[in-house]
């Protein structure tokens, strides 16, 4: 039976490096390729940053939980928070012309998540907001 691959931290920016380290270490132990590990770290980082910066606005700072669920053909990351729900939507690449003219763009964060993951889903229940990110192996 696998160890419980769950880590919980206060929803503060310091959690980002901890989560990335947790993913890197777990992937290494599981023999998951470095490319996949990197993409998981990037997607987690972008999603967790959104929660940390916006999820608890106007509320007492809460926590954010990362759970890794490795399978034979895919690995799933489950990010859970208890702040304001924020359902992600797939976005286009940021418009280069906007980047060149300092105009607001759709941002890189969501775009990176959808570019790096094979499936993105989101649901809210009595146990919090859950972002489910799946990467094929």
């Amino acid at each position, binding site marked *: 039976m696998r160890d419980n691959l769950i880590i919980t931290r206060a929803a503060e*920016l*310091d959690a*980002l*490096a901890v989560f*990335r380290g947790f993913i890197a270490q777990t992937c290494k132990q599981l023999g998951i390729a470095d490319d996949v590990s*990197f993409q998981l*770290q*990037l997607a987690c*980082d*972008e999603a967790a*940053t959104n929660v*940390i*910066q916006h999820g608890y606005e106007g509320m007492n700072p809460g926590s954010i939980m990362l759970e890794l669920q490795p399978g034979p053909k895919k690995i799933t990351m489950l990010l859970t928070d208890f702040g304001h729900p924020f359902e992600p939507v797939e976005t286009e*690449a*940021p418009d*280069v*012309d906007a*980047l*060149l*003219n*300092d105009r607001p763009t759709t*941002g*890189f*964060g969501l*775009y*990176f998540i959808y*570019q790096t993951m094979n499936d993105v889903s989101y649901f809210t229940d009595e146990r919090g907001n859950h972002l489910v990110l799946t990467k094929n192996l």
Partner: protein
Amino acid sequence: MELAVTTEQGRVPVTVLHVKGNLDSTTFLTFQNEAEKLISGGTQDLLVDLNEVPYMSSAGLRALNHIYNLLRAKNEDQATVTKGLVNGTYKSPHLKLLAPRPRVKDTLKMSGLDMFLDIRSDLKDAVAAF
């Protein structure tokens, strides 16, 4: 993250901002503020050395884009940029990147910043490109 600044003399004086450590939401503002300080202090041509940056998230990219626009605002006109973009020949003449690691390079490509930021692998070559 640690920052260090050196200067190189090419055709023009080039300020080199060496970044050591991850560029993410935790650190990007320190990086951005240092670049802003350099630019307000007179830097017109900036080379960002990414050789010791193992990881960069969208926060680092936003900082680079912001720095690009600061340098452009001081030195470039819209017509030149638009023409170069249409021709596919435009790269920022005032902000260039040095030696990003493969994963950071992947992130730069995914964002599209590599379309207008010149990426060089060698310091002398990078300085000569300004």
